[in-house]
């Protein structure tokens, strides 16, 4: 029953993709620090300096049954100094994947904190999988993340462990929510260029190797490209910054299954004084 989804996203109810920026980078996103860090690596939340709300929609292989919609919010606690919220950031997320026949719902809450060169974060998820005619199952997953600046402002490291408690969805065939560990490096030689490389491992799947590049053409425009070896996709995307708004779009191409599209919109509720 879960096979088509597993094939399609390579990890049913796994950590998944969050935000079109990550999608454009081949999902090599473990070092990113925007509002979508809530799902990509919760440690990255610690660098969100003003309250932000984001909406993300994804359509896979032009099939309506494989739509994902996510609403996320990040709220810094305490004043922001030095590019970080002094008391950390809390994040919330609501996600829905699928259609009437098969769907996954997720409610997540996370917290990220940045120290001097290191960030840590934790998150809790309530997951629900519903299959029409078979009812639904619920599970709770706990995840942890960490990020570090290996070389200040140049080399970044991130690691994210999703579902460390190996939550069980069903007794049948011992079906569990995937436990996924990912770790990666991001090299940012100048403020304009970012190169990401990452490995991701789901206990039950082969290892995935992902890489992405982002180039900030002008302040308002970024272009991206990437690939992922396990889901065999090549990705590309653009990002636009317009005042408090941020628009990201990404397209991913799979040789056999075709095109997937990702769109994200973010709004900073009050811009932090620089």
């Amino acid at each position, binding site marked *: 029953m879960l096979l088509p989804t597993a094939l399609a996203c390579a990890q049913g109810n796994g950590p998944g993709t969050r935000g079109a920026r990550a999608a454009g980078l081949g999902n090599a996103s473990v070092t990113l620090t925007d509002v979508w860090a809530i799902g990509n690596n919760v440690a990255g939340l610690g660098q969100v300096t003003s309250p932000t709300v984001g909406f993300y929609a994804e359509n896979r292989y032009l099939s309506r049954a494989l739509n994902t919609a996510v609403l996320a919010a990040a709220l810094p606690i305490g004043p922001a100094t030095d590019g970080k919220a002094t008391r950390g950031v809390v994040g919330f997320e609501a996600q829905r994947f699928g259609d009437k026949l098969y769907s996954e719902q997720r409610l997540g809450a996370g917290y990220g904190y940045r120290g001097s060169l*290191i960030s840590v974060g934790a998150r809790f998820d309530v997951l629900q999988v519903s299959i029409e005619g078979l009812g639904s199952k619920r599970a709770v997953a706990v995840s942890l993340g*960490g990020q570090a600046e290996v070389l200040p402002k140049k*080399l970044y490291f991130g690691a994210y462990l999703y579902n460390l408690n190996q939550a069980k969805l069903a007794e049948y065939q011992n079906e569990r929510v995937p436990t996924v560990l990912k770790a990666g490096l991001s090299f940012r030689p100048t403020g304009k260029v970012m190169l990401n490389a990452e490995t991701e491992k789901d206990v039950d799947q082969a*290892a995935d190797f992902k890489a992405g590049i982002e180039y900030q053409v002008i302040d308002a425009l970024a272009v991206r490209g990437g690939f992922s070896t396990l889901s065999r996709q090549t990705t590309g995307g653009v990002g636009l910054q317009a005042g408090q708004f941020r628009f990201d779009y990404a397209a991913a191409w799979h040789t056999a299954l075709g095109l997937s599209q990702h769109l994200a919109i973010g709004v900073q509720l009050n811009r932090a004084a620089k």
Partner: protein
Amino acid sequence: MKRTFLSLAALTLLLAARPAQAQEYVRPPADLDRLVQELFAEIQSDQVPYEDLYETLLLYYQTPLNLNTATREELRALLLLSETQITALLDHRAAQGNLISLYELQSVDGFDLRTIYRVSPFVAVQSNLGNAARGPLWQRIAQEDNNALFVRYERVLQDRQGYAAPDTTSTGKPASRYLGSPDKLLVRYRVSHQRDFSLGITAEKDAGEPLTWSPGTRRYGADFYSGHFVLQERGKLKTLALGDYQLQFGQGLLLSSGLQVGKGAETITTIRRSSLGVRPYSSVLESTFFRGAAATFNLTSTLRASAFVSRKRVDANVQTSADSLAEFDEFSSGLLITGFHRTATELANRQALRETIGGGNLTYTSRSSNFSAGLTAVDTHFDKPLQRQPELYNAFEFRGRHNLAIGVNYSYVIRNIILFGETARSSGGGIGTVNGLLASLATNVDVSVLYRNYARDFHTFYGNALSENTRNINEKGLYVGLKVRPVSRWEVSAYYDQFSFPWLKFQAGTPTEGHDWLVRVAFSPSKTSLLYAQIRTRVKEYDVAAPGRNLPLTAPTQRRSLLLFYDTSPTLILSLRTRLQGTHYREDDGPQRSGYVLAQDASVKIGRVLQLSGRYALFDTDDFDTRQYVFEQDVLYAFSVPALSGQGTRAYAIAEVKCSKHLTLWLRYAETHYRHQNTVGSGLEELQGPRRSEVKVQARYKF
């Protein structure tokens, strides 16, 4: 760059602000786990006694080496200094007198900050105060800080086959079962002072071994006991050891124990052995030590003589039994070294052979300590003749009761090159030789070369010179190592080792050959972080199935491993470590199989009392051949490298609690959770269910 400058500035400031009385550098805690990561490139087997090795390293590194009294040989044994640096330090000491503080290392040629940070946990600058000035011996022992009792307990929580009720096999015979409880116990007391004395007692019971009082079978409670008393630096008498001790002379061709790292990512310093002579033994490996007495005398200022005698019972398969439980691999044929006495068969082999060894060493060291040469003799006698399995690969193995081995060794420093070697002959005519050189071509380029040739009939029982085999027999090889620091913070190290086995081996029915190479690129962005990538490839020939052929056929087997490692301590309280490890394994033209592990560690220090560390790792291997060994943190003095194969997760948590000034507790829980498996392990170790969990508790009481 900026950070180095800052730390340099800080050091210089401290140096400038030093009051008249020398201010002692606060010795940073030794990160032994990280050191082990740097020294052992890749653990590829659980046959090698890493536990013992690790423990000896630990003990060695735990008493800081006094830079004011350390000899050239002792400095080399640290494995962290190049020959040029050692020479520079000795010259500095000769010219300027004793070092006043560790800060002074900065003014020694060739000591960069990285080296200083690396060695600082393991060395100290102490005034050279005579032992007698500290009071009589009993008082010195009583007042020694380094005085501790360890108690350790561990067990696997699940029920295993070996502990089940006895059953009968299909042939009607009772099935083999462990005779003891699944608890592992260790009690150890030790007190020691560098260059003065060492006193220690150890008792151990492995899981499955019974606690029995049975003088008839030489079992007195615990399965293994060890004890020693060692005195050092008593005038002409340099060392006197009573009880259990270990010996290290020359290149370890005849006598070697403890400090061998072998081929690893430290490609230069680790290929040479240091002649450290007689040292105390307090580990729990039930072989590779001597029991009796040993002494070293300084005959003149340049001539040193050692003599030793040892008599103990060793485990052996004296009668070739039909029981197939005994393992006949290349490591344990005849003599059994596992130290396990859990089943009736293992108990029958326990202490089956009495081994008497006598010997000595005479070493000349020139006044400048640039040249040294030595003569070693080891005479081994067994009370019953050793028998081997009548296999062709055992044709040249030792058999009989008596073996005399005599060897010469040398070491010579010319400018920035050190030449060293040892050649020995054993009864029966077999010759073994190992010769090498280490050279510092420039301040940032080091090379090493080592040639070895151990005849197929060369027999030593306590030799452990560098080799691909686990013993020094039936092997020829040439090792070349390189270490380059092209720019500061970067280090590239590499080795290439080619070897051949002129006679057959276990699982190799023809003479075989192979090679092994490694490249590691390490980058240390700051003094507290390290990033490296390493690739290692080993090609070795093994038997392959050849249906329809009467002659054996061997084919090359390739194992290629990739390792990415990142270690950082961004703050004083937190450290993080990530390790990605993968292996490709291929037999001849067969399918390529692979293994993968991704592990994330974190360690937090909470106040002065508590330190918490943990790991979460995911592994996925195609089969047992691609199994992964990942080094794990453990309670102090214990070592853990589980073999991970199949699919699943491995997690552990360890807490170190300083209850008081005297008492420290360690608690460790580890669990491997396998996917798609209903049983774990095989044979007597088999357990039901997908999990295997271990608990370990250790207490240290410092008097």
